[in-house]
């Protein structure tokens, strides 16, 4: 474990952490800004200014309905982050619980949890999400549920593996010899020691969730109009990619920045919280 005191000085010198954190902060900033202010109402249609090139009035131009692209992208950040937070949060809570339970109880419970994880992994995620959308109808919430379901086994596996390693430590034996039960040991000793692993995995899963949401919305199975969504903007831009290529470029860039930022942040956090790597510095 890295000590809290040495984290920030090292973090400031870690290039991918700094770049990742900056990009992520930029995306979060866009989402927060869109809550209080956007240049135009994101859903306001202005037929006379359809597909305007970027200009002083519309920094990123307008789409085929004359909506302001910058406003749509700012508001779309909100949607992407919300889906990511909910889906990954759901995955972390349920997946970590299962993983911790598996490590604490071992035996058939562990087998059951791990076989469930294998079972879920055996399905291609996007196909299963399409299936869910077909059954429950396309909506933002259903895409959250679909993405969350595929996050549960990821966290269950990662947490079980790390928790098993912690359970083998001497201080766990010492804690057991002090009369602590497995629930108490899990909460007091195991969970704090694997928190870093969960945060790192969570950051990377967050990036994947944003990508998955964009993909589902692009296919028309996620966020429905008129709620702004990066994935749907791509879909709508596709029809006129030769007449107005910038309509595809800007939401594409937004997705790329968010995903890249979170991935770099995740890598940076992994390096910074890995005690073996921190000692080399």
């Amino acid at each position: 474990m890295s000590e809290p005191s040495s984290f920030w000085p090292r973090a400031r010198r870690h290039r991918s952490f700094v770049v990742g954190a900056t990009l992520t902060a930029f995306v979060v900033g866009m989402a927060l800004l869109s809550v209080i202010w956007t240049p135009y109402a994101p859903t306001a249609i202005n037929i006379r200014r359809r597909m305007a090139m970027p200009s002083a009035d519309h920094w990123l131009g307008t789409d085929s309905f004359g909506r302001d692209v910058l406003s749509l992208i700012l508001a779309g950040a909100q949607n992407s982050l919300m889906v990511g937070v909910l889906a990954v949060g759901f995955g972390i809570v349920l997946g970590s619980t299962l993983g911790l339970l598996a490590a604490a109880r071992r035996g058939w419970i562990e087998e059951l949890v791990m076989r469930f994880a294998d079972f879920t992994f055996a399905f291609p995620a996007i196909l299963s999400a399409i299936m869910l959308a077909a059954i429950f109808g396309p909506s933002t919430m259903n895409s959250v549920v679909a993405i969350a379901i595929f996050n549960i086994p990821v966290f269950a596996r990662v947490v079980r593996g790390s928790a098993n390693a912690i359970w083998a430590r001497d201080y766990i034996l010492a804690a057991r010899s002090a009369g602590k039960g497995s629930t108490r040991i899990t909460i007091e000793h195991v969970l704090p020691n694997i928190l870093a692993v969960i945060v790192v995995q969570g950051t990377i899963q967050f990036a994947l969730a944003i990508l998955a949401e964009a993909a589902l919305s692009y296919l028309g199975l996620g966020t429905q109009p008129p709620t702004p969504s990066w994935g749907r903007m791509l879909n709508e831009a596709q029809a006129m990619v030769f007449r107005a290529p910038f309509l595809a470029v800007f939401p594409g860039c937004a997705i790329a920045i968010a995903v890249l930022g979170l991935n770099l942040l995740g890598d940076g956090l992994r390096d910074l919280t890995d005690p073996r790597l921190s000692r080399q510095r």
Partner: protein
Amino acid sequence: MTKAPLLSVTDLRVALQTARGVVEAVRGLSFTLDKGETLGIVGESGCGKSLTALALMGLLPDGAMASGEVLYDGHNLLTLNEQRLCGLRGNRLAMIFQEPMTSLNPLHCIGDQIAEPLQQHLKLSRRRARDRAVDLLDRVGIPNPRQRLDAYPHQMSGGQRQRAMIAMALACDPDILIADEPTTALDVTIQGQILDLIRRLVDDSGMGLVLISHDLGVIAETVDRVLVMYAGRAVEAGPVREVFARLAHPYARGLFSAMPRIAPGQPHPRTPLPTIAGIVPDLHDLPAACAFAERCNLAEPRCRAEFPPAVSIGPAHRAECWRTDQTLGARASP
């Protein structure tokens, strides 16, 4: 009528599940421990010392099964359910471990780790538990105990951490303290201090101590009675002075002569250190008779054919060997 001992172990066996089948690592160990008594268990790596300690605490690793009887306070600890055991561990039975560097959780300050069992078992408030932790740190000889309460394990030396571990173990005034190689990871001067400390705490509190070590010197200095273990059996047991004076079992004799002796003022002996020939027998493939016969220079055909009897050497001193006439005839080497 004699009072029942504090702890009574009868025919303790520990079976391990391995890739090559089930093996018995502890094969029928029996001993008793009274209040205020100190018992040493000595033997080389893999003889089942640590498994014995873990079996007493009910903390055997997955795949290990204990049978026999460990009687404490009218209960067989081997059949007690996990919840009852949790109530005993850290409360009535306490254990200290070999590695002070890794036996404390790096994320919690030691004050909290010592106060924990007090809050759990004695239901003390956090404040009162921390006050008790200060007393405990003081008792185990940590200077400035109130300041050290908030220290993290990485801020302490090995000896200090072992003292903190002892404080944790003693928190609830246990009846039985099990110390598994408590000084092996420490340097020699610290080793002496820690042993003195354990010895003093046992004398003060009247608890029973089971001290596990591979170091005969540690055993000789610290305990009243000793069990010499070999391949999961107590091959010799008795009062420590008697056992060391007579060394009735050839294995005990071998261990003793394999100990380096450095006397001040005398030239370093140029002779190589005697060793016990051969290696510890494979537990998968233990001989049906004496497990030490293959390495024993006194072995005769009978040793490989029949299990040796427990020969009484003196009061409460016995050895499992066919050839005690030989070992006792030829006086123990100095």
